[in-house]
């Protein structure tokens, strides 16, 4: 049985809902750097809670990348501890594409089943438009680039920490 990758990066979103495809775009950028690294698992999911839990099982560091709409400037990105998702609710922020319940429930389910990774972070890229159609807005495209650079540095650092 192969060992679980040390780091898992999960992108959530729908490329046919414009900026909801931000997570997938970040993942593509990470693929160029970590695509052949067996210590890193890059996976695109729809946000369904069980799939999330099963995708991160065994990894010590997990990043979830999704588009968000929190009222902050378009194209900015923010990182939070995924176990603090309830705080996002209090501030009115929402993960784009209707995935928040899936992720929140995934954290709760993983807690009950003792499958919560030691480090579970969410990277949200502030989306400008979630209408039907393809292609990121210009602001989100720039946000994806910055978020990908940030995440490449974070994943590289995590790999140095055995």
């Amino acid at each position, binding site marked *: 049985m192969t060992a679980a990758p040390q780091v898992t990066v999960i992108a959530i979103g*729908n*490329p*046919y809902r414009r900026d909801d495809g931000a997570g997938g775009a970040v993942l593509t950028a990470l693929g160029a750097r970590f695509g052949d690294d067996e210590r890193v698992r890059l996976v*695109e*999911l*729809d*946000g*369904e*809670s*069980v*799939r999330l*839990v*099963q995708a991160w099982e065994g990894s010590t560091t997990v990043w979830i990348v999704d588009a968000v709409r929190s009222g902050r400037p378009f194209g900015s990105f923010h990182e939070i501890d995924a176990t603090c998702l309830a705080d996002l609710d209090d501030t009115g922020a929402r993960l784009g594409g*209707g995935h928040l*319940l899936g992720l929140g*429930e995934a954290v*709760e*389910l993983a807690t*009950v*089943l003792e499958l919560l990774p030691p480090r579970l972070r969410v990277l949200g890229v502030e989306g400008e438009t979630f209408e*039907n*159609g393809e292609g990121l807005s210009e602001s989100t495209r720039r946000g994806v680039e910055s978020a990908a650079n940030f995440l490449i540095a974070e994943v590289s650092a995590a790999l140095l920490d055995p």
Partner: protein
Amino acid sequence: MTHEHRARRFGVEALTRVEGEGGLIVEVHEGELVDVRLRIFEPPRFFEGFLVGRDYTEPVDITARICGICPVAYQMSACHALEAVCEVEVDDALRALRHLLYCGEWIESHVLHIHLLHAPDFLGYANGIALAADHRAEVERGLRLKKLGNRIVEVVGGRAVHPVNVKVGGFYSTPSVAAMQDLADELRQGLEAAVDIARWVSTFPMPDHEMPEGTVLVSLRHPTEYPILGERLVSTTGLDISADEYLDHFTEEHVEHSTALHGRMLAGGDYLVGPLARFVLNADRLAPQAASLAAEFGLTPAERNPFKSIIVRAIETVHACEVALGIVEGYSPPARTAVPVTPRAGAGCGWSEAPRGLLWHRYELDDAGRVVSAHIVPPTSQNQPSIEHDLAHLIEHSLHLDDAALEALCEQAVRNYDPCISCATHFLDMRVVRS
């Protein structure tokens, strides 16, 4: 008690544990049920318009994005319809791989619905998380089986979510023998788990209820198989038609309270698709262990209690494991990964049985193989009128319950149909108004 029933309106503002977003309003006046409306308020998805002008190769991948839970269903129905336009028939070996891929999706979808969406209703829990806290072993067993469903989709479809290996005419690549042997080992264990799950579900307390008399059940039918990839459409009223004849018998209409279309029979009346309809019309096509369990649980084609759909889902999961195991054990790599497809101008229809029921597609292509028009009828929009009528029937016999109990019962009843509002548009939220 009577005065309490004079003015009564209740609802679920946002129905949970269904795929998508929607709501339910129930109005009761002087103890009499006045109205039940399933409200769908997610903006409609314009996938059909989105497909126009696209190359004939694209709907298979684009429609898979309509739903994260049943992308394979969209891919298969799209393939069948586009292959009908192009007058192509896939080889038996490729069809078997499609059957296997679809079994993976059925396992995933049914197991998720049983454990985290519906079982909490029967066992008195607020949600799947609370259920998992008290029934950890059962939930872990279910999640292991769901993971096997994911694995099947990944091996055949290229990845577990929104598979990328399916094309008109077949696949881009076919699995290795080694990968299939690994699946066989997992499936033998998975089948045992599926049987245990079915026996567990069969012990759930079942509300005593029957769907309204005259409800027409509709399902695909195949000469020898349980109809995941069925060929004809049959009904409890004797209908027996091809995919091309679908619009001669069924239609969709707009209703004010929903952004999803409502399915109707042109001959008049509602109809129901999904696991219970499939079982009623195809019980004789179940794989041996699944058929044996149905007999053990006393389920027959006369069954009309929609709450027992959770048992049918568990039996269908056993069936999917048995079929998948048979395909995997007999696997040798197909002679070719796909049959050649030459696009041609024309129209064609195709269908398959998504976990939630019949999914029909129709495409029209031009000479260059571009989509001129697309028409998709998902299971949830077909079921919405029947769900409303079944709820009305249930509520009429349950008005003695207080609002909280009635709301809980209604939510449980809606989940009998496992509505996928992502497909029909999206769903759920409830209000009861007593006046």
